[in-house]
């Protein structure tokens, strides 16, 4: 019987497999200095995931943790703006590209820092843009891997990965990294709940440990009178029950969150006594417990 694919050892000298293994080894070596890696994800866009990531990073950094944030949303990067590092120059050295430094020493990597202007989309040089759908996903996965592996993060207690909305990036990251878990952010609407259920199932398929559900925009806080009004008709508790995830926090919408976000300032630190600030701090405490206490060391 003639030889089949599996009968032939190696790749005949084209050396692709060796390079892929070397690339993975480089990423592993870089990530070995990062104690915990947590993805922040959502089933759909517009649920406030990036703002939540920025606030969590700020609270934990203020607590003395060494925190990094990777903006994994290559096509809609916002972490540089939210953490006030837009326009910073990245320093290149033989050990890699040093991240931008945000408030409280948060180390930030975002595609936004490499693009020339606000309206410049992320596009790729190629011999042809025809059939770009064939390679675009691979190119983005490689870019994510490079941003992770070639950034001189140094020693970190926590790397938060702010994912783009929707499903595709979570499996990609799960393939690249040994994630310690993922937070699922949602809003209390039926539509959001539907996509969360799909995301939860996808995460489980790829072996991603889901730390819990965060209900964002859980009511509207009137800054003038301090009352909390209804914003969406649903509630995160029933969604948590349906999806089998613990509900980690219910964070009300406070217009000052948007104000702070636009100025690259952490709302949770500027308004620590507000209901939103307290909910975010409680979430950070819960995350700390999940990652570093409750026998969570892996």
């Amino acid at each position, binding site marked *: 019987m*003639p030889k089949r694919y599996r009968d032939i050892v190696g790749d005949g000298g*084209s*050396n692709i497999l060796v*390079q892929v293994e*070397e*690339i993975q080894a480089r990423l592993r070596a870089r990530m070995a200095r990062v104690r915990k890696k947590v993805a922040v994800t959502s089933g759909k866009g517009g649920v406030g995931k990036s703002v939540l990531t920025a606030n969590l990073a700020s609270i934990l950094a203020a607590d003395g943790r060494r925190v990094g944030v990777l903006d994994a949303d290559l096509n809609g990067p916002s972490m540089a703006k939210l953490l006030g590092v837009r326009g910073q120059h990245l320093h*290149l050295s033989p050990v890699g590209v040093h991240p931008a430094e945000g408030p409280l020493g948060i180390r930030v990597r975002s595609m936004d820092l490499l693009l020339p202007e606000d309206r410049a989309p992320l*596009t790729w040089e190629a011999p042809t843009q025809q*059939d770009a759908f064939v390679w675009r996903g691979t*190119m983005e996965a490689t870019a994510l891997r490079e941003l992770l592996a070639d950034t001189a993060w140094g020693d970190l207690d926590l790397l938060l990965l702010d994912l783009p909305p929707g499903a595709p990036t979570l499996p990609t990251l799960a393939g690249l990294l040994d994630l310690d878990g993922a937070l699922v952010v949602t809003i209390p609407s039926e539509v959001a709940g539907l996509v969360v259920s799909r995301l939860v199932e996808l995460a489980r398929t790829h072996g991603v440990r889901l730390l819990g559900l965060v209900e964002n925009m859980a009511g509207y806080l009137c800054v003038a009178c301090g009352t909390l009004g209804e914003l969406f008709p649903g509630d995160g508790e029933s969604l948590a029950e349906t999806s089998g995830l613990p509900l980690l926090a219910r964070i009300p919408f406070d217009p000052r969150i948007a104000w702070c976000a636009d100025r690259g300032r952490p709302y949770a630190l500027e308004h620590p006594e507000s209901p939103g600030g307290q909910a975010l701090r409680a979430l950070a405490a819960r995350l700390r417990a999940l990652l570093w206490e409750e026998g969570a060391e892996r």
Partner: protein
Amino acid sequence: MKFLCVGCDEPMRFHSVEGPEEGSVRVSFGCPRCGHRVALLTNPVETQLVRSLGVKIGGREVPPEPLEVVRMSVARQREGALEVEGEEGVVWVEAAEARLQRLPPLARPMAWMAISRYARERGWTTVTPELMGEYRARMGF
């Protein structure tokens, strides 16, 4: 992808890679028993797919540089996004600087650092276009 010489039932060995030219790469393989050669000619989409993996067919002489794919492939790049420390004792002549400026903005600092280091390690104090050509050929670009 693996190649098998049907006549000999022998795995073929990588021989050489040329290109890309007009979006196509020519990868040659040969049978170690009968010497029969075949060439794989990629179409532009296949070329780009390999490029997007961040690997070089046939292997590398030196490890990949930081952000290699991002620096060479992001179409619109911010000027001055990356900064690099100076390499002491190495001077770039004007023509070499001009050649450096033809690279994408994100690729310049790394090229500047790598070529300056290459010059210094060989005891040269000046970077010229000829030295850049030598470096490029040595690194298999």
